[in-house]
């Protein structure tokens, strides 16, 4: 018998509490004075690894961009280490938290500036391909939705222990496609809540 506190929707009005410096200016008086605790830029000055940008849009069942969603990402550093006590290996990037938050803009766009994560240990000692855990919150979501972002230029995807649990024809929804803009690697990752291209979501 579970006794956890139930989840409830983040609702439409979380911006001034959770993402006060997001792209949408929702403050009727100008700009919220509240400072962001968790930003969409995860990069710390001394962090090692390849600097990348993640961009995408999130769509509802009508194909309309969701303008009041929030995404959170959780990832390892370039060496595949998590900044958390359960990962007991050495942590070369002491200041890199690996956690970010992005509110969507009017057309449902989100983005993160971060480091490409390294491979991390998986079940039974098998490595997992580099990936980012993504959590989505919005009005109309009574609980957060979990998915994962994988990278289109990683050969390890083919043998990733989680990706291979997903039906082959749906794996494409979890792959962020690489392009280069202004010399910087950009990975595009669109999220479809429903429809033909419905993103794979996980029960964790």
């Amino acid at each position, binding site marked *: 018998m*579970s006794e*956890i*506190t*139930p*989840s*409830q*929707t*983040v*609702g*439409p*009005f*979380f911006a*001034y*509490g*959770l993402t*006060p410096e997001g792209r949408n*200016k*929702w*403050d*009727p*008086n100008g700009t*919220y*004075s*509240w400072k962001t*605790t968790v930003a969409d830029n995860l990069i710390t000055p001394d962090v090692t690894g390849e600097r990348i940008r993640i961009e995408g849009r999130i769509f*509802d*069942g009508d194909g309309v961009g969701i303008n009041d969603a929030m995404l*959170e990402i*959780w990832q390892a550093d370039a060496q595949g280490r*998590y*900044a*958390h*006590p*359960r*990962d007991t290996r050495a942590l070369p990037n002491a200041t890199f938290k*690996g*956690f970010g938050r992005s509110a969507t803009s009017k057309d449902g766009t989100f983005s993160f500036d971060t480091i490409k994560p390294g491979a*991390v*240990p998986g*079940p039974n000692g098998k490595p*997992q391909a580099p*990936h980012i*855990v993504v*959590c989505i*919150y*919005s*009005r*109309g*979501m*009574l*609980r*957060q939705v979990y998915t994962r972002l994988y990278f289109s230029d990683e050969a390890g995807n083919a043998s990733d*222990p*989680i990706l291979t*649990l997903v039906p082959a024809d749906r794996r494409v929804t979890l792959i962020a496609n690489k392009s280069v803009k202004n010399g910087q690697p950009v990975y595009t990752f669109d999220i479809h*809540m*429903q429809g033909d291209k419905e993103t794979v979501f*996980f*029960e*964790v």
Partner: protein
Amino acid sequence: MTLVFPKESLSAFPKHLTPEYKSTVKRSPTKPLIIVPHTLSELTGPVYGHDAIQETDNDLTKQGKGEPLGERIIVHGHVLDEDKRPVPDVLVEIWQANACGRYVHLVDQHPAPLDPNFTGAGRTISDKKGYYKFITVKPGAYPWGNHHNAWRPNHIHFSVFGHSFLSRLVTQMYFPGDYLFPFDPIFNSVADEKDRLRMVSSFDLENTVPDWALAFRFDIVLRGREATPLDTDKH
């Protein structure tokens, strides 16, 4: 101590698709969720320290030039895991409507006044015993467009971190005995009454400060319990 996060505990959560709450219809997954094992990626999660916040971020009555209008209240409690052990040093964030039931947000067009001395955002870090405390004003009820004459019960939004990314919880705290409970599809999206009542704070006379503020207690129980020998065998 090794924590596990049994999926069965999620039975207390609402279903993604709850048609009575209309916004869920176009925003919830239609295909079955893929069940995956917990790897290091799920079993870890963000860690925030006291450097992430200001000392006074937990007092929502001190963010303006003067005091906000409304009923001053204390909202406090413990962040706990499924074994009811304290979850120390975690970030707790709240946001809420003002005493008139109006949010500081462009989309909120409820014709109730904004309060120049109230934003409605707060945050704190739980202490070594998992304890947290906010000072605020009691939020008002407000109408919303879900159905004819729909009103949300008084509530405070909570965002809480725990021992892992699986413990991450966004919820709403309600006030005891609210007459709007039977009519609210968000509150009632939690099917079981015992589960629902865990979202309702209790009036706390013992911690009510004489001549100053009523207190409400709200304990938050996150996913995560100690592994039993049986769980360990499985790994």
